[in-house]
């Protein structure tokens, strides 16, 4: 305790040092005066009396040192001195300081921004108390390691497992028609159906009202209650606390507001933030699969299941338990659970299996770290040449008795200050990049559900940035520091150019330049490859006509239509649109290609295809369309026919498949006329009547995929898009559409009307451009840094060899010889860097191909363009200082220094 007290006393003394020095001086004088008087009394002469007194007191200066050491904190004082000195010496070279700070800021900013991506996509814990206990339960099949569970399966899991404190389930967030008052036309909001124990098990306490009770989720259709999301409550109800007990309408049904979720809980999803939560028991009001009975059918798998592990239960125990349960399912319900397993995933596993977005994040982090590495090596190079220029200063300090450790500390303080400034500016840049991402939100999320990009400059990222700054301080500060304090004193004092270039020293500099050239070459290759892959995918085309198309969508369930009413509405809609002038053709489709929502999947068994015995069925993506679809979208039917008005409910079930589907399952014969059975071997038989051309369905960069179309009349869907092919500007059709819909039912909301091409540009062009911009920016920054680094190195070499060059020229060397002499080294370094960069770029291309594009092969053009231009630019960086060297007048050079 005493030592702690002393520490604070000493810390306080730092501020009042001058006063304390005064006090000591006065005390010493008093002391000596008293001793002198005593000596006088003893009979000494005045002079001798004082001399003896001082002798007896001992060395004043040494004592003062001791006193100060005891008095303040010497190391803090020294450090403050170091900082002052470092700031002073950095201010002497403002250009260099600014360059170093900007360089580091770019590296750190890029890295922290990309870290925030990876954090948001993978690592950030669920916004609930004790997030580590929350695990995800998934159903697994041959084709998918991330399938959902059905309601019945969920009930069994909830009741028959013992590993969890609670098991929750929720459906995907879906579009729900919301109106605060009955008379108001509904607007689309994002609602999520959850189990009654959802908030309770997650440990989320509503900020207002209550969460669901377990009994509110037991009787289908009984408890129409709703919990609002925090942002929705703020925007829609102006944070009004009296919202509790209010009745709102969701899809036309009255719901009572019972609670508001807290601000800390925007939802469990990575991107989406539900506007409100409804109990699963109300499923009939919302979009569940119309073909199935949500509460009864064990193969109506629409639920995500999560659970909270009991303390002390391991993941392995939970996994084993669930595996047994899945086996029981398989035995009990062989028809729907054949070869179907189950798995328990941690948050990390869940986020990395759910989708592939995180891979972009990881690639960007790797690229950003490469930029940071370039920045650090560059700064290290600059500091190294600066340290060399300071050889004499260091030598003088060492000669005067400064300890090596003290000097190292001094120089490291400098790089620490540089890194701190760079880190601060880097955080600003990172913040800017993240904001830039957020400004792209409207491009990334094109559907109407509430979502945001989960990248934030939060405490976690700030800490990472801080750590990066520290790391870069050490990275770029240590090598120059250690080297410059290892000065040969005699030579160092003799001349400012005291270093005899040993092999070892130059080796370090050379490695720096090679590293820079190669990493920036790799980055540029990467961005070029991405741009090329993207361009390719655009040039390939989508396989359908994108222009002159108007899209709009409807969901008759929003005004409580049943299936038959919906079908009737769509029939009327199509008929009346056909009579409207200015419309060449019209179509209805459940989803649009390259649209905001994913396509549904369909399970089937193809006739005459040799299926592995343990396989239940195959899966394909599918769409439900009407008879006008293929014509309107300009998708050619290669064989057979498209859908006809005669394909009604009563007619035999038919389907159209795409070319890839046909070749996949019937590689030899003609697929037209063959049958598939839906769901399983015993399922409904559907005849394949036509083969459509394979188009791009979900992304312009996708691989060709199996696809199946079903006619709307035989496969009713509530929510449909209307696509209109216009002869003129598609937007001129907006008003006619409104009139037609009004004439059928004035209450039906018209959702998202826009020109299809507009959506396409957003989705297929602007989206990927974000990624390309980012990598391109990184490559550009890297190249800039490499140029600066190379220029610095050659310029430094020239200035160091000025005298030598002068001598050579005096002895008759031509300026071209000098140019060759100085450039030779630069060429060699760039050459080595290019070779390494090529290898790295090639490796990165393989990685990108396997992770993203699946393009395969090597894009030669990328290298043909990038490598020579990179080579030229870097050569220019070496040429400029070399040229200056060749212009040196020998007389001047010999006099130099």
């Amino acid at each position, binding site marked *: 305790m005493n030592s702690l007290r002393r520490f604070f006393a000493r810390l306080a003394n730092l501020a009042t040092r001058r006063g304390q020095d005064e006090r000591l001086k006065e005390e010493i004088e008093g002391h000596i005066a008293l001793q002198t008087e005593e000596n006088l009394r003893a009979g000494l002469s005045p002079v001798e009396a004082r001399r003896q007194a001082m002798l007896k007191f001992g060395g004043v200066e040494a004592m003062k040192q001791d006193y100060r050491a005891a008095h303040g904190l010497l*190391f803090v004082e020294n450090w403050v001195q170091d900082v002052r000195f470092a700031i002073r010496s950095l201010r002497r070279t403002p250009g260099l300081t600014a360059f170093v700070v900007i360089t580091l800021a770019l590296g750190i900013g890029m890295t922290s921004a990309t870290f925030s991506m990876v954090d948001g996509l993978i690592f950030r814990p669920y916004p609930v108390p004790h997030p580590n206990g929350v695990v995800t339960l998934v159903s697994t099949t041959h084709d998918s390691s991330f399938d959902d569970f059905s309601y019945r399966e969920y009930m069994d899991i909830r009741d028959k497992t013992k590993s969890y404190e609670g098991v929750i389930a929720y459906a995907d967030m879906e579009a729900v028609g919301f109106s605060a008052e009955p008379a108001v036309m509904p607007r689309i909001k994002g609602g999520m159906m959850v189990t009654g124990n959802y908030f309770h098990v997650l440990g989320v306490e509503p900020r207002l009202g209550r969460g669901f009770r377990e009994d509110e989720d037991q009787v289908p259709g009984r408890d129409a209650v709703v919990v609002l999301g925090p942002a929705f409550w703020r925007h829609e109800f102006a944070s009004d606390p009296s919202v509790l007990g209010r009745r709102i309408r969701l899809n036309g049904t009255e719901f009572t507001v019972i609670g508001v979720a807290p601000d800390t809980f925007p939802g469990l999803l990575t991107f989406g933030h539900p506007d409100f939560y409804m109990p699963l028991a109300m499923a009939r009001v919302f979009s569940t699969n119309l073909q199935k009975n949500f509460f009864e059918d064990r193969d109506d798998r629409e639920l995500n299941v999560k659970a909270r592990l009991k303390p002390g239960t391991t993941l392995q125990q939970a996994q084993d338990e669930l595996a047994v349960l899945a086996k029981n399912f398989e035995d009990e319900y062989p028809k729907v659970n054949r070869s179907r397993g189950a798995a328990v995933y941690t948050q990390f596993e869940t986020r990395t299996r759910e989708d592939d977005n995180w891979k972009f994040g990881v690639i960007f982090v790797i690229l950003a770290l490469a930029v940071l590495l370039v920045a650090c090596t560059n700064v290290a190079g600059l500091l190294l040449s600066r340290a060399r220029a300071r050889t004499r200063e260091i030598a003088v300090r060492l000669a005067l008795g400064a300890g090596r450790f003290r000097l190292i500390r001094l120089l490291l303080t400098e790089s620490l200050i540089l890194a701190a400034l760079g880190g601060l500016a880097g955080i600003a840049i990172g913040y800017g990049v993240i904001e830039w991402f957020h400004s792209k939100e409207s491009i990334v999320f094109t559907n109407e559900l509430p979502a945001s990009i989960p990248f934030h400059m939060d405490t976690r990222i700030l800490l990472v940035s801080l750590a990066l700054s520290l790391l870069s301080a050490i990275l770029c500060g240590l090598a120059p520091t250690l080297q410059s304090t290892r000065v040969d004193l005699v030579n160092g004092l003799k001349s400012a150019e005291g270093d005899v270039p040993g092999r070892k020293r130059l080796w370090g500099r050379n490695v720096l330049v090679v590293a820079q050239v190669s990493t920036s070459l790799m980055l540029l290759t990467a961005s070029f490859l991405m741009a090329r892959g993207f361009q390719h995918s655009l040039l390939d085309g989508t396989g359908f006509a994108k222009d002159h198309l108007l899209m709009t969508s409807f969901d008759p369930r929003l005004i409580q239509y049943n299936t038959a009413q919906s079908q009737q509405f769509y029939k009327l809609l199509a008929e009346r649109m056909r009579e409207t002038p200015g419309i060449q053709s019209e179509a209805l489709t459940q989803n649009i290609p390259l649209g905001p929502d994913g396509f549904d999947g369909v399970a089937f068994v193809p006739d005459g295809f040799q299926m592995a015995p343990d396989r239940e069925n195959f899966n394909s993506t599918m769409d439900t369309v009407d008879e006008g679809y293929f014509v309107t979208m300009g998708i050619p039917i290669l064989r057979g026919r498209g859908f006809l008005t005669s394909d009604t409910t009563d007619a035999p079930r038919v389907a159209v498949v795409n070319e890839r589907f046909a070749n996949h399952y019937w590689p030899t014969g003609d697929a037209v006329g063959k049958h598939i059975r839906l769901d399983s071997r015993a399922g409904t038989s559907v005849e394949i009547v036509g083969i459509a051309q394979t188009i791009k369905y979900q992304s312009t960069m996708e691989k060709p995929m199996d696809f199946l179309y079903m006619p709307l009349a035989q496969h009713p869907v509530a929510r449909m898009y209307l696509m209109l092919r216009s002869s003129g500007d598609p937007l001129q059709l907006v008003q006619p559409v409104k009139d037609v819909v009004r004439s059928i039912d004035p209450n039906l909301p018209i959702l998202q009307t826009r020109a299809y091409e507009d959506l396409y540009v957003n989705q297929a062009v602007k989206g990927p451009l974000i990624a390309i911009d980012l990598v391109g920016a990184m490559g550009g920054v890297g190249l800039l840094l490499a140029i600066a680094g190379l220029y610095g190195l050659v310029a430094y070499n020239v200035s160091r060899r000025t005298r030598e060059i002068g001598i050579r020229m005096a002895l008759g060397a031509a300026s071209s010889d000098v140019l060759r002499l100085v450039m030779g080294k630069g060429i060699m370094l760039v050459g080595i860097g290019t070779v390494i960069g090529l290898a790295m770029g090639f490796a990165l291309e393989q990685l990108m191909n396997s992770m993203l594009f699946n393009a395969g092969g090597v894009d030669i053009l990328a290298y043909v363009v990038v490598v020579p231009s990179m080579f030229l630019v870097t050569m220019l960086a070496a040429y400029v200082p070399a040229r200056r060297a060749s212009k040196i007048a020998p007389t001047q050079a010999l006099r130099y220094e």
Partner: protein
Amino acid sequence: MKEKTDVLQGTLALMVLKTLDVLGSLHGYGIARRIEQISGNLLAVNQGTLYPVLLKLEQEGAIASEWGASENNRRARFYRLTREGRKQLRAETQDWEQTAAIIGRFFQAKAEDLS
């Protein structure tokens, strides 16, 4: 940065505490004289070493100081023992006596005592 924690400084601190305990409030020179009188040579040439010790004790809260007038009417800083210091003195006196006793026994011990 390194503290002087050798025996001399430790004993010096104890001497200062004891002196102030016996004589009450005293200035630096007075303390030095007193220690000199009793210990003989310890501070003979190096009275100055006293001051860092005084500062350390003051920071620890064992002694307090204030300005006052010395016998020759000079301004001088007077040190006195605090309650904390008294406690410390008691504890350290005990420690010291114990240590001294043990060391004493060791020095007196002869080979036959240990066999």
